[in-house]
């Protein structure tokens, strides 16, 4: 019975999520040429003969974002566009271009979006400076709070002689009272 009560909301949640997803899907109207090809015998991706070159291609590909499956690099994605771009990277590196040349080539066509490591410039100032700003701001606020608290504590230390005497009396009286108390009387 209890298990059933538990299952129901979970199932309802799952249905709700499924409905939301189904509603969101048609919004992606652009045909994003997803990988449809099953990996047949002829579908293996091309690989450079030179292992060093292939290693360079893969290293660079891991830094480049696929525009179709946006949270994958072009090394990870199997979208046709990612394969095309990987071929481009391989071809250009094989032709003797530097890694920076290849990056410039892709940025010129697809923008900074292809880079997983965004460059530091005017439009990314907040992105790069934000954490520093937060850290400095937070540290400043903390320092200010601590100093204020210190001031408050110092102000509390300033008791007059009469106040001190009264405090001592209270403490002494309290001590006497608690010592006269027997364990039995408490219960």
């Amino acid at each position, binding site marked *: 019975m209890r298990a059933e009560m538990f299952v129901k909301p979970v199932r309802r949640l799952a249905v709700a999520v499924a409905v939301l997803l189904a509603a969101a899907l048609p919004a*992606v*109207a*652009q*045909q*994003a*040429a*997803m*990988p*449809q*090809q099953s990996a*047949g015998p*002829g*579908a293996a991706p091309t690989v450079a003969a030179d292992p060093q070159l292939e290693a360079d291609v893969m290293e660079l590909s891991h830094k480049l974002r696929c*525009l*179709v499956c*946006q949270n994958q690099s072009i090394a990870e994605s199997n979208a*046709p*566009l990612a394969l*095309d*771009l990987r071929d*481009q990277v391989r071809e250009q590196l094989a032709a003797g271009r530097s890694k920076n040349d290849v990056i410039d080539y892709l*940025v*010129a*066509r*697809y*923008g*900074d*979006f292809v880079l997983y490591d965004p460059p530091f410039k005017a439009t990314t100032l907040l992105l790069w400076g934000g954490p520093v700003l937060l850290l400095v701001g937070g540290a400043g606020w903390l320092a200010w709070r601590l100093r204020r608290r210190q001031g408050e504590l110092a102000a509390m230390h300033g008791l007059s002689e009469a106040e001190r005497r009264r405090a001592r009396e209270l403490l002494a009286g309290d001590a006497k009272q608690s010592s006269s108390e027997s364990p039995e009387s408490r219960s």
Partner: protein
Amino acid sequence: MKAKFLVPLLLFFALAGFLAFGLTLNPREVPSPLIDKPAPAFSLARLDDPARPFALEEMKGQVWLLNVWASWCVACRQEHPVLVRMAQQKLVPVVGLNYKEVRGDGAINARGMALEAETALAIERAQRWLDDHGDPYVLSVLDIDGRVGIDFGVYGVPETFLIDGEGRIRYKHIGPITPESLQQVIMPKIEEVRRAG
């Protein structure tokens, strides 16, 4: 400092505001760095006459659209009637860039296919599609391997580029053209470019 208890509430509203704004953005629309830059030069075979290459310069002096399409592209079917109507009203010349007609189709394994055979198949498929659905293009060119598509920063089909009389890309429309986007965005952009040029 009496309203201190309101601080979390205000923070919540600020966060909710940011998130609400985020919902209006489409992460699939990646802004093109090619806007206001010269369109990448290319020379590709024409669909109607594969022996004759078409180059960008032939459209010099005109404001025109370059529409990326393929017969395997489902969203192109949705946009096609809009293009046909545009052609009937002679709103703007549209050149078709047929993108990876054969190897872009997930149903065909084009690896190992000879380029001549692939080109012949592409022409047959593309022509049949235009015969079935109407041909709104002044001409179409064949980008068999998608290389020109990469030069234009194409990452999905359909996409449409607005190119001015000097061959500069002035606007990029990502996804199918709808009657609304045509009326509210694309036509005003075309008018603007025409006035400026």
